């Protein structure tokens, strides 16, 4: 049974409705329809803009030999002197771990926000308000610098992970909640009318439909987290931003190092966005299929 079978809407009408509203469906239309040149033109414009940017960088007369010399360290292909990973590899580790923790926290918080239990609701809304209402940098500093004052000493890496997870978990909880709320009530009722147990209603009917709505903003949050992971450099973690600044300071090659770091962050963001797009297509696949019909 797919989630479209229980919608109780005529297939043709449902398809038209979704083709107008969902990104994956309209993408599919571009591939096949008369606007087939659209993507080609998009790519050509991108290439032209990229060439312009590259030309600007060449115009700055950057010391590319220096960049090449530092690139293996920036990318994290070599280990730091203390044997730990560094550079972009550490940035990715921090981001991916925080992502997993943030998702766990966010799911719990979202259920708390939708709970009829007042204590659960209060806990969830209090946490979300606190962590969305204070700057991430202040949270990082409190966890790393202030907690030792009361005897709780966390390492630089765990401090960074906790700060990023708690901060982004609070935002992600709202995203998840809004996704769940946006699934029409009739979906659940129809599934229950078919005598599906509650967990199956969530797993097969409301969950997948909510995910379709959650994935685009959640993807944007994770891209943002990737860049905010540079904040952990203030605790002496040798991640991408820390190394770029350290090399720049030592040699006064600020332009080279900061542009190199920016490009590496950008490339990683693009990779994240591609994963997001795949997930978006996967969870919107029923709609894309209908739109083509």
């Amino acid at each position: 049974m797919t989630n479209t079978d229980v919608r109780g809407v005529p297939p043709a009408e449902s398809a038209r409705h979704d083709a107008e509203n969902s990104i994956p469906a309209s993408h599919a239309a571009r591939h096949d329809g008369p606007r087939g040149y659209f993507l080609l033109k998009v790519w050509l414009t991108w290439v032209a803009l990229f060439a312009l940017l590259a030309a600007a960088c060449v115009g700055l007369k950057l010391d590319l030999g220096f960049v090449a010399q530092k690139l293996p360290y920036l990318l994290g292909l070599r280990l730091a002197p203390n044997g730990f990973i560094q550079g972009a590899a550490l940035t990715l580790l921090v981001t991916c771990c925080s992502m997993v923790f943030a998702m766990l926290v966010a799911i719990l918080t979202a259920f708390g926000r939708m709970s009829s239990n007042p204590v659960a609701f209060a806990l969830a809304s209090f946490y979300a308000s606190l962590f969305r209402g204070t700057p991430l940098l202040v949270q990082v500093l409190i966890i790393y610098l202030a907690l030792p004052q009361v005897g709780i000493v966390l390492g630089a890496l765990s401090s960074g992970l906790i700060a990023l997870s708690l901060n982004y978990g609070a935002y992600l909880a709202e995203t998840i909640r809004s996704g769940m709320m946006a699934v029409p009530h009739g979906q659940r009722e129809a599934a229950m009318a078919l005598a599906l147990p509650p967990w199956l209603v969530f797993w097969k009917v409301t969950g997948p439909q909510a995910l379709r709505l959650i994935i685009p903003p959640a993807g944007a949050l994770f891209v943002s987290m990737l860049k905010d992971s540079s904040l952990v450099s203030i605790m002496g973690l040798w991640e991408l931003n820390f190394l770029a600044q350290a090399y720049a300071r030592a040699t006064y090659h600020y332009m080279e190092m900061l542009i190199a770091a920016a490009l590496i962050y950008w490339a990683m963001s693009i990779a994240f966005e591609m994963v997001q797009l795949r997930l978006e297509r996967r969870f919107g696949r029923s709609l894309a299929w209908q739109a083509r019909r």
Partner: protein
Amino acid sequence: MRLLVSLLLIGACAAQARAGSTLQRVEQRGVLHDALVDDYPPFGFIDANNELAGFDVDVARAVAARLGVKLDLATPGWETIVSGRWQGRWDICICSMSPTEERAKVLDFPVRYYNSPAVLVVNKNEQRIHSVADISGKRVGVGTGSSYESYLNKALSIPGAAPIAYPFHDVIVIPGDETVNFRNLALGPGLRLDAIVSDIATARTAIDSTHALKIVGDVLYAEPDVVATEKGDPEWNTTVARAVDALKADGTLAKIARRWFDADITLDEH
């Protein structure tokens, strides 16, 4: 949430386990955890091979070798180090720290390992500033949380040293990363900064690397630099002091100093 709570608990337990005596901890683990800064050439910086290098690093290596333990270096940032309450994160800081009364409240200073006076640095094209008496109303850069910052705020007090003169008023103190400050001063006189107060050794390194700076006037004040430990383990302090004194006596410190500077900055009087 539960996972994070247990993470926090694990962290707290680890802190408890680490809270014992520093000496015990170092002996048990066979590792000396040394905190230093990576933005203070030639004392501590990241070299071309991505390794931490500098005078402080070499001294730390010698101390660890003397104690017969491995060395582990961390670069947590200056403010984190001088604010104390390490709670076992690090065992020692061989990081060019000046012993001020403020810092002595949260840290112990078992032994001095070099002397390096403070100087005033200006752009080489500077015409208006000839000595520290000319910096009134000027923008002067210092390392954030450094003893030079306290000096410009007329609040520096080095235990056991003569009171310091402050022949200036209304200085605009610009705290920041010292290396970045030097670069800003090198851009031109008065462009971003008018002057910098720093240690003579870091000043000379900056002069050599930028070719755009100079030292003016006399030495501002003599400044000892000490090894710092977390407050409250006299046994560990004695062990550290004995190790450093032994390195002084057998000429190791002098050898390291000559590797990085023209002069032996570890002598008692500079």
